[in-house]
């Protein structure tokens, strides 16, 4: 049996957990972006959902509490949620910041408990220790687990037994099945499959003709055959993307190029951490009107060193640059391959390569000690010193609080309760 654990209104619930005076009140996060990124259960009841503009949300509920996203505290809670689940099983997939899959198979005797009881313990521990609720779905496959969780939202525990799969699927619309996109859903509806049950009951040959492998896997999963396995911790990536939005939008060419280079530095940093380098790089700019321009280029040799990319990026940037206001830049490193051993190209001085390897070895060490971007390219300087223009109170409280010995970049990895003690 597998379990899917899903934090209820995760970001907003965390705010209510560290600021207990907000319990029971409608709370949303996303102030820094002017849209609702997460809504508490109380806010959802008023019709405020993810993606609504803050302006509209305030109209729906004038006493709405609007907070900036506190990524620091969210990631601490996320890690603790996984740690609690790992007390019960070693096989845990950190699916996203607020979701995990866990394999409970064969653990009933060890815990002297049924699967439902193990799940209830996980749920209780998370609630008692983190002050947030999670919904748990238990089923023989991941896809069925997701359906169980949907049924249990919020704070519920739903189990789909192998013998009761049909009952669970009868009222599930095909587009609400995990991994079924809008196009696939439309196709399946055309062939008379409106519910997950109708899809599940079609003969295998029929589905095989209609769908490719991932669709077939979903069909098998709904039929109780586990075909989607557990992903171990990532040791490599196929591609790495980094993008950043800046407020207000800017028309300063050097500043926008600097933003782009900073993304490249970030992406390269991540690639180096996994001992990977890129053979191909894509850059894109997003205008104020949300239109995007992009371009892809290849490099001669696999690299994860911004110095080697700066000229190529400059050329591509000049190519796609049009005067105007931009709100974001991004990069994609693709065609990733192992960085070591590196082979210089035919006409390259091998010493240059050795130099970069050493240089970035040192830069990565400095970063460990002094924080990200302690050493960076001159080209990204205008982006490094830039602070988002923001209204007062846009910074999460935890970020605005520096304890003795902490810096803006290096902080204690423990959540802080924000209450006024009498």
């Amino acid at each position, binding site marked *: 049996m597998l379990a899917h654990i899903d934090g209820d209104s995760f970001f907003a619930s965390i705010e209510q957990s560290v600021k207990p005076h907000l319990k029971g009140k409608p709370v949303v996060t996303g102030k820094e972006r002017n849209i609702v990124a997460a809504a508490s259960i109380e806010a959802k009841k008023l019709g405020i959902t993810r993606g609504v503009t803050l302006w509209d949300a305030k109209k729906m509920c004038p006493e709405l509490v609007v907070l900036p996203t506190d990524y620091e505290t969210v990631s601490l809670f996320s890690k603790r949620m996984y740690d609690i689940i790992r007390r019960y099983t070693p096989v845990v997939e950190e699916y996203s910041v607020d979701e995990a899959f866990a394999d409970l198979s064969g653990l009933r005797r060890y815990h002297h408990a049924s699967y439902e009881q193990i799940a209830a313990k996980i749920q209780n521990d998370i609630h008692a*220790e983190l*002050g947030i609720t999670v919904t748990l779905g238990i089923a023989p496959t991941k896809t069925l687990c997701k359906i169980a969780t949907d049924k249990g939202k919020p704070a519920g525990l739903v189990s789909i037994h192998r013998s009761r799969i049909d009952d669970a699927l009868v009222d599930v619309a095909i587009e609400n099945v995990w991994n079924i996109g809008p196009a696939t859903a439309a196709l399946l509806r055309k062939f008379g499959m409106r519910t997950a049950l109708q899809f599940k009951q079609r003969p295998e040959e029929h589905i095989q003709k209609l769908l490719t492998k991932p669709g077939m896997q979903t069909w098998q999963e709904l039929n109780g055959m586990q075909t989607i396995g557990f992903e171990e911790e990532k040791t490599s990536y196929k591609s790495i993307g980094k993008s950043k939005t800046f407020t207000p939008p800017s028309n300063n060419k050097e500043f926008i190029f600097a933003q782009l280079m900073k993304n490249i530095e970030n992406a390269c940093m991540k690639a180096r951490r996994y001992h990977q380098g890129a053979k191909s790089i894509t850059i894109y700019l997003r205008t104020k009107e949300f239109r995007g321009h992009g371009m892809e280029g290849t490099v001669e040799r696999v690299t994860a060193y911004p110095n080697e990319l700066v000229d190529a990026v400059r050329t591509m940037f000049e190519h796609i640059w049009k005067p105007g206001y931009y709100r974001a830049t991004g990069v994609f490193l693709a065609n990733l391959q192992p960085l070591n051993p590196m082979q210089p190209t035919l006409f390259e001085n091998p010493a240059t390569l050795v130099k970069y390897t050493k240089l970035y070895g040192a830069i990565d060490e400095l970063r460990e000690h002094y924080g990200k971007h302690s050493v960076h390219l001159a080209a990204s300087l205008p982006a490094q010193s830039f602070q988002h223009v923001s209204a007062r109170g846009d910074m999460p409280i935890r970020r605005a609080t520096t304890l003795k010995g902490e810096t803006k970049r290096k902080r204690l990895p*423990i*959540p*802080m*309760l924000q209450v*006024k003690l*009498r």
Partner: protein
Amino acid sequence: MWPSPAEEELLDTISFDEWLIEPSTFIVKVQNNAMQDAGIFQDDIVIFRRGQKPKSGDIVIADVEGQWMMRYYQIEDSRPVLYPANGNYEAVRPEELAVIGVIRSVIRKY
């Protein structure tokens, strides 16, 4: 190379992190001297364990009808009482009480 006799001893150490940060611990900044006689002063950082059931004599963080306080927790006549460790504060015998956690350590950085 001879193995160092200190090597096996080293295996039995824990880091300050492990020593202080137990599962489910949170921190909170102390904002008054209500617990000064217990050695907890304003601006100290207190580490508490969230969700832990309090015993008589524990120092707890509690919610008394929307007011948050850190006090000694005592059970008297099977009812909870919150005692300060400072003569200028009064004991509280709450009708309703929610204990959010139990204090585990106090940190004062000079």
